[in-house]
């Protein structure tokens, strides 16, 4: 259940003395709110491009899409780009200022992620624990962008068949990680500020009525009931790491996995990366790229030894990392928010719910 990790950044439910009141705005008045936000932030929101819903720059309220389950790729790329230059150097060995790694200026602008789903926002909170686990030495690239990002969440009214947020300490209206939580009531939105940053934006708006707040609560319950499949974690959480590791079911579960990297790249909480240096003439840079634990060379040592050289090892490690190792190391925080993207995108339809439920026995 919710323990110490609720005191994560941006989570304020238990501590606020001030009452943050819910506000209301009609969708045809959104331009005014968007303009206010755009003065400080570049606004991005899910928009339909072809059959997919992708994160796109938004300049006016008409660009906003309301009829979607979730975006194709998660928004983690805003704070953790797939390819990111970390350091630069002059590739001139004999020069006095050559071969010295320098960090480029962190000049990423402020971004507002409008209509982000609660699961993706919670994922940011989980990644905060990963990238800022050492307060003396946080990941500056993540931290810089995170502090400049505003999250306005859109609660889910229609979870899709692959969603299972309610089983992993999240939900269609989960507030964790958000600055504002919005509820779609067809022609209007109920907005609940969750942080001072969020509240400042909504000062000009009218207070929401009792009816609207009740309607929002009703929709929340309906959404939760719509979530069909879930997963059970009791035995996994209670059992020892070694017991889960040696579970006999792994032998049957791993076989269809083709070890691509689709699940890891679509997952909003996956965070592994590979660093390498590249040079081109006299310019050099140290770049980090998303990496995947499903890749055979992920754990290849220079000696040639590979502790996770078999497909079963890599498959098992992915699920154990998310549901066992991460909670163990991060004070109970699960490495999964139930968005369902891995299941939807997996080329061989490996369903995380089926895997976890089988291991949970």
């Amino acid at each position: 259940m919710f323990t110490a990790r609720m005191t994560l950044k941006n989570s304020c439910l238990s501590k606020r003395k001030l009452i943050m009141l819910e506000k209301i705005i009609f969708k045809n008045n959104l331009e005014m709110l968007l303009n206010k936000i755009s003065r400080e932030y570049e606004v991005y929101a899910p928009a339909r491009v072809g059959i997919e819903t992708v994160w796109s720059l938004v300049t006016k309220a008409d660009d906003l899409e309301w009829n979607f389950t979730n975006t194709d790729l998660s928004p983690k790329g805003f704070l953790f780009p797939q390819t990111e230059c970390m350091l630069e150097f002059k590739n001139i060995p004999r020069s006095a200022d050559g071969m010295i790694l320098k960090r480029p200026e962190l000049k990423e602008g402020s971004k507002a992620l409008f209509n982000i789903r609660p699961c993706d926002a919670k994922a940011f909170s989980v990644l905060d624990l990963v990238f800022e686990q050492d307060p003396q030495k946080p990941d500056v690239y993540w931290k810089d962008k995170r502090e400049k990002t505003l999250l306005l969440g859109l609660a889910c009214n229609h979870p899709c068949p692959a969603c299972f947020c309610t089983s992993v300490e999240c939900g269609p209206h989960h507030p964790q990680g958000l600055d504002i939580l919005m509820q779609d009531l067809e022609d209007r939105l109920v907005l609940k500020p969750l942080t001072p940053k969020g509240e400042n934006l909504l000062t000009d708006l009218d207070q929401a009525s009792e009816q609207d707040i009740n309607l929002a609560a009703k929709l929340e319950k309906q959404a939760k009931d719509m979530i069909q499949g879930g997963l059970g974690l009791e035995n996994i959480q209670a059992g020892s790491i070694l017991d889960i590791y040696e579970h006999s079911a792994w032998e049957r579960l791993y076989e269809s996995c083709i070890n691509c990297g689709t699940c890891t790249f679509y997952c909003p909480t996956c965070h592994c990366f590979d660093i390498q240096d590249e040079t081109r003439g006299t310019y050099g840079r140290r770049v980090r790229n998303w990496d995947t634990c499903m890749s055979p060379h992920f754990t290849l040592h220079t000696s040639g030894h590979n502790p996770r050289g078999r497909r079963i090892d890599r498959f098992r490690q992915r699920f154990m990392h998310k549901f066992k190792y991460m909670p163990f190391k991060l004070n109970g925080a699960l490495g999964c928010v139930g968005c369902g993207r891995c299941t939807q995108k997996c080329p061989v339809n490996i369903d995380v719910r089926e895997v976890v439920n089988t291991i949970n026995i």
Partner: protein
Amino acid sequence: MLELIEQIRDNARQLLEEGKVHCVIGYRQGSIPMRVQPHFAYSPEETDKMTWSCFCTQNLAKYLIGREEPTAILAQGCVTRNIAGLIQENQVKRENIYILGINSPGMVDYRKVQSKLPGRVIHEVLEENGHLLVRGPGYEEKILKRDVKRDNCYTCNHRNPVIYDQLIGEKGEETGGGNIDKVAAPWENLGPDQRWAKFQDTFKDCIRCYACRDACPLCYCKECFVDESKPQWCGKTVDESDVHTFHILRAFHCAGRCTDCGACESACPMGIKMRRLTSKIEKDIRQMFGFSPGLDTQESPPLSVYRPDDPEEFMLK
């Protein structure tokens, strides 16, 4: 469809009961609409889950590589061609596999179904004769299967299995109706600038997940060229040049071996049409060398042989 499924299960069960094979590879029902999962049945009871439908887009030949024990596999036309190719390349021993051949009616591309219902959540898709019944919150739609088939299935010329130990059902129509030579290389009529624009547009969404490579039965190298680091031929970034290098080289590595099974496009989470490269290569190979892969386990692949009169027009004379 149901009779075919029964037949598949019966045959699989028999093979396992008689101990002829250690495992039967097929498909089972997926966990979300329009998907199936590869299924590995090691005991007769496990064959009860086996299924066959118009959503069977994964190429199961991939799972034969590296298997030592006798294995049975359910395979349609293109998959049997890949199996023949793998036998040719000594990755699979013919005596170790038992092929349950089946005619493919052409597989459905789930993205095309989704594009017919933009923005709608799909809860259930039922396959019926000739059409799909799609259900979601507050709606039910009928979609004709022939409108939503995979691109490569329209131009298929080998729907029946080319090599098999047992046939499930009957042999059916051999072709999908389309003419592959007409659609294989659409950019041939364009100038270099337009071609480059089309090429860039095709691969702009690639996230280097390698699902295409990992779903492909031709890609079985222990060390893929993308992992070579001394020197590094292909960077790991998502910069345009790295993405292009990966796809060009992978397409070239499949030259003369690709059976156009479409598993790459079906696996791609971004819906990238990488067959635009491989179908052009296969067209060249067909027209220049008169070779179609996977039809003969004894024939050598075209890039491993030569003829004295091979085309030389492209050379600077």
